[in-house]
Every structure is written in structure tokens, then in C-alpha cells.
């Protein structure tokens, strides 16, 4: 790729960002994704914390989990939608016949996901502050920015997995767009410290970068970190998995061209 190709490259990437943006704007379920479900989750968990009269650090622990979960969920959905929109509208072959590659649709949809994820993060952080007195400031802007970047990378990874599954299994895999994050909720310690998990499950939990990212961010709110070098390990894992996922996605695309799933999903 030469420098003269850059404008066309940018246009291809922007196409996916713009498409996700328009689709989000037009569809009612976007309101539910950004506002309704995250806020319902936040309010119900916050009220539970009130009812149990939890100490401030434990309350922050849980609210950080809820905010992170909402952010990751919305951002990864955008990445997953990059294929799912085409699958649902049976137009996948038109995207695949165009001269676009993995980087275009992933970067474009991820950018859309980061915008929406940032909105959810801001809404939930504001909601937490207003309803339950949660103060985001102790971590400081740099740590918040680092944490957000880490969450977005986690979301990219999950969205990538959904895309791989869609190319392998077709629209049977669309359920993964919603269920993979629930698996994270169970294993990465959204509502509880992973240290309470049974030993074999803890081993699994330690394989997920989100576990370390949450551990890192919570340490700014009076919660004892469970792992040393949590940010470095989390980022290391996420980069490793991203490389593996990108490789798997390129293989899945080659396999899709072999099995004809792109055609089947366009009929």
C-alpha cells in the first residue's frame, strides 16, 4: 500500500463507520443498547448495593463492573454488526465482492463501537455519580483513558470472535453477539472478585484480559489488586489474542470462500 492509496483506504474504512452510525441512528433497539439495558443494570445493581449497605469500596467495585460491562457490550456489538447487518439483510456478497479487507471493516466498525461505548461509559458513570454517589475521579484521566482503551480492545476481541463464528457457522452464530459478553460476566469478575471462583474456573478467568483490566482499574478505588502487573498482563494477553483472532478471521474468510457460506448467507 502506497501513500497515494491512503485516501481510498480511509474511504473504505469510513464506509463501515458511517454505515454502523446510520444503522444505529435509525433503529430503535440502539436506544435500548445504549440507554435502557445499561441503565437498568446499573440502577438495579446500585439499589442492591444500597439494600445490602455495602461499604464504599465494594460498591465502587460492583459499579465499575457494571460500567465496564455496558461499555464492552455496546462496543463489541458494533464490531459484530459489521457482518451481522449484511447477514440479516442478505447482502454479504456485495461487501465481499468489493476490494475491502479485514482491516477496513474491523477498523470502521470498531471506531463506531468506540463512539457508542464512550457514550455508554459516560452515561453510566454520570448515572452512578447521580444515583449512588460513585466518584470516577480517583483514577485520574490517564488511568481512565488507559482503562477505556483496554475495554475497547477487549470489545474488539469479542466482536472478532463473533465475526469468526458467523463466517464458520452462518447466522446460527449470531447469538454469540450477545452471549459471549455474558460469559465474560461470569468469568472475569464483573460483580465479584475472581479470587472467589473455584480453582479450575480461576485458571480460566486468568486467561481473559478483561479480568486483569478490571483488577487494574479497581485498584484506584480502594480495592486490593488480585494480580501483579495487571495492566501489562491484560494488554499482553489482549494483543496476543488479537493477533491470533486476526489470523483466525483471515482463515475463516478463506474457508468461507471454500464452503460458499458467503453465498448462502446472501440468499
Amino acid at each position, binding site marked *: 500500500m502506497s501513500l497515494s492509496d491512503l485516501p481510498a483506504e480511509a*474511504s473504505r474504512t*469510513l*464506509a463501515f463507520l458511517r*454505515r454502523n452510525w446510520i*444503522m444505529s441512528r435509525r*433503529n430503535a433497539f440502539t436506544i435500548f443498547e445504549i440507554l435502557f439495558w445499561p441503565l437498568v443494570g446499573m440502577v438495579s445493581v446500585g439499589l442492591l448495593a444500597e439494600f445490602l449497605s455495602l461499604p464504599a469500596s465494594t460498591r465502587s467495585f460492583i459499579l465499575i463492573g457494571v460500567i465496564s460491562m455496558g461499555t464492552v457490550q455496546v462496543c463489541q456489538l458494533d464490531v459484530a454488526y459489521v457482518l451481522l447487518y449484511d447477514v440479516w*439483510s442478505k447482502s454479504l456478497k*456485495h461487501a465481499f465482492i468489493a*476490494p475491502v*479487507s479485514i482491516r477496513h471493516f474491523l477498523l470502521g466498525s470498531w471506531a463506531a463501537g468506540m463512539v457508542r461505548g464512550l457514550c455508554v461509559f459516560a452515561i453510566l458513570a454520570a448515572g452512578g455519580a447521580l444515583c449512588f454517589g460513585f466518584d470516577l475521579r480517583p483514577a485520574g484521566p490517564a488511568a481512565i483513558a488507559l482503562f477505556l482503551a483496554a475495554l475497547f480492545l477487549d470489545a474488539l476481541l469479542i466482536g472478532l470472535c463473533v465475526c469468526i463464528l458467523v463466517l464458520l457457522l452462518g447466522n446460527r452464530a449470531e447469538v454469540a453477539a450477545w452471549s459471549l459478553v455474558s460469559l465474560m460476566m461470569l468469568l472475569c469478575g464483573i460483580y465479584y472478585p475472581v479470587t472467589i471462583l473455584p480453582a479450575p474456573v480461576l485458571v480460566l478467568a486468568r486467561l481473559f484480559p478483561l479480568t486483569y483490566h478490571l483488577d487494574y482499574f479497581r485498584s484506584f478505588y480502594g480495592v486490593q489488586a488480585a494480580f501483579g502487573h495487571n495492566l501489562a498482563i491484560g494488554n499482553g494477553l489482549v494483543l496476543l489474542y488479537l493477533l491470533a483472532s486476526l489470523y483466525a478471521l483471515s482463515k475463516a474468510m478463506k474457508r468461507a470462500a471454500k464452503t460458499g457460506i458467503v453465498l448462502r448467507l446472501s440468499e
Partner: protein
Amino acid sequence: MDLAIDARGIEKTFVTGFIRKRRTHAVRGIDLGIPRGTIFGLLGPNGAGKTTLLAILATLLRPDRGTAKVLGMDVLERPGDIRRCINMSSGHANFLWSLTVRENLEFYAMLYGLRGSRLREKTQGLLRLFDLDAYQDRRFEACSTGIKQRLALAKALVNDPKVLFLDEPTVGLDPDVSRRIRRAIVELHERHSMTILLTTHNMAEAEALCHEIALIKDGRIRLKGLPSDIKRHMHLGDTIRIRVANARPLPDLEGLPGIWEKTVEGRSLVIRLDDHKKRLQAILSRLASSGCAIEDLSIEETSLEDVFVRFAG
């Protein structure tokens, strides 16, 4: 010959099922050469392998065996370069349902790297070309089949392709819209001299549009050539009906070559023969020498439809 598409020994088998694997041989060793600038028709019954072959040439599908080149580029080695020069439109037009006609067009134009004023000019030009101006702000889900089909063709031109694949471009459309689409295809070909490969079930369409056709069945090309050659090759022949005015006995046509069958229906002589263009003069001379006054004459040429019915059966 300068070929836009050059496929040799293409084979494709689909395997379905996890435990009990089922194999469907969609394409079984197809050789196909399509010269640049021609409109080539792929005809065949459902499941013959037309769409599979089209998808292989359009780099959407990898062949199991064989080589295929589009504009001299191998489909397996340079799919990205090929994609810049080709495009596709399908009969069952499906695009993003929430996007308007214009937004859909802009989205695909951007995928081909268009931006800024070029993007705007291109989309505006295509909207105008396919009479879509009035519907540009209508969401795709709210469009009629005809509008969707015109959008599909407009989308297929966003990158000014050198090779255009049309998969049953008029399927499900009413005759008026079909005619307009066919006219648009001819105009596109004339204006841009692009190579067009189209699949169709509509024989009138194939006859009207295609310079050359191939009949495909069970994954193999059975016949290929000019529509007229194919009709001759199938030996279905032509039919001449001659009504005579006077009451003289109808003449015997014994000794005239190329006549397969002769029947008398009232005052009409119905003659089935190999090629009316070659035989008509001799028949008319024989009738004239017998003193028959011809009142009416009609010629029914074998249509591609007849060929297709015979072929598919």
C-alpha cells in the same frame, strides 16, 4: 483472442453436514473463454451450476480444481486486484434495509475508494441514469422490486467495472420493468463496452442481449456458441406455413433437400425443415411451378426457449 474471462477445468463440490457428509457437485470441469466486450449468457435449469460458476469468477468462491483468469488475473492469486475491476448484480436485490437508496449507493461507492466530490458525482450520475432520483431518500425496505433492481444495477456500476456479472437480472420483475432493465444493460454495454456475463432463465432475454451463450447442465457446459448456431445444433429446425388461395392439389415436395416433415392442415401446407433461409426459395419455386397461388406465408423459427426446453428435459 483477447479474453476477459478464461476458465479451464473448473470444478466445485459443496460438502454439507457435520456427521453424514453430503457432496453436491456443482461444477464439473468447465472450460469457458469470453472475449472482451461481449455479452455472454449462461443458460441452464435450476441447480445447473450457473451461479456457482459466476461466484467463482467473481472471487466469492474458491474452485476445488482448475484455473480461472479474469482480465488476465488469476482468481486465486489476485482476488483483490480483480475485485477493483469487476462488479455484480443479482436478481434478488438485497441491500441494507435501513439505509436509503442514496446511502446504499454511497456505501458501496466508498468501498471502492470513492470520496468527496467524486463520490457525490458518481452517486448522482447513477441515480439519474437509473431514474432513481425520486426515490433516493426512500429506505431500501420501502422500495418496490423494480426500484430495488435498478439500485442493484446502479450499485454494480459504482466502480465502472470492466467485467460485470449479472445473476438473473430481471427475475421476478414485471415485463415493463424487465424491458427497461434489458435496455439499460444494452446501453451500458454500448457506452462502456464492458464484458457482461449474465445468467438467466429467460430465453427471450438471452436472445435479445447475448452475443454468445452457453447451455450448462449438471455442472457442465453442454453447448456454447452463437444463439443461431446453438439452435441449428439442436436440430429443432424451423416451420413454414403456407396457405394457398386456389383449390389446386397441394404439390409434392419430394426431392427438395432439408425437409423433415410435411403435413396438410386444411388449405395450409405445414413444412418442418432444417433452415428456412436455405430452403425457402426452392419451396416457393416448386409451389409456383405447380400453379399454387400463395395467400399467406409464415415462418416460425426455433426459439431459444424451444432449445432450452429440449435441453433441460
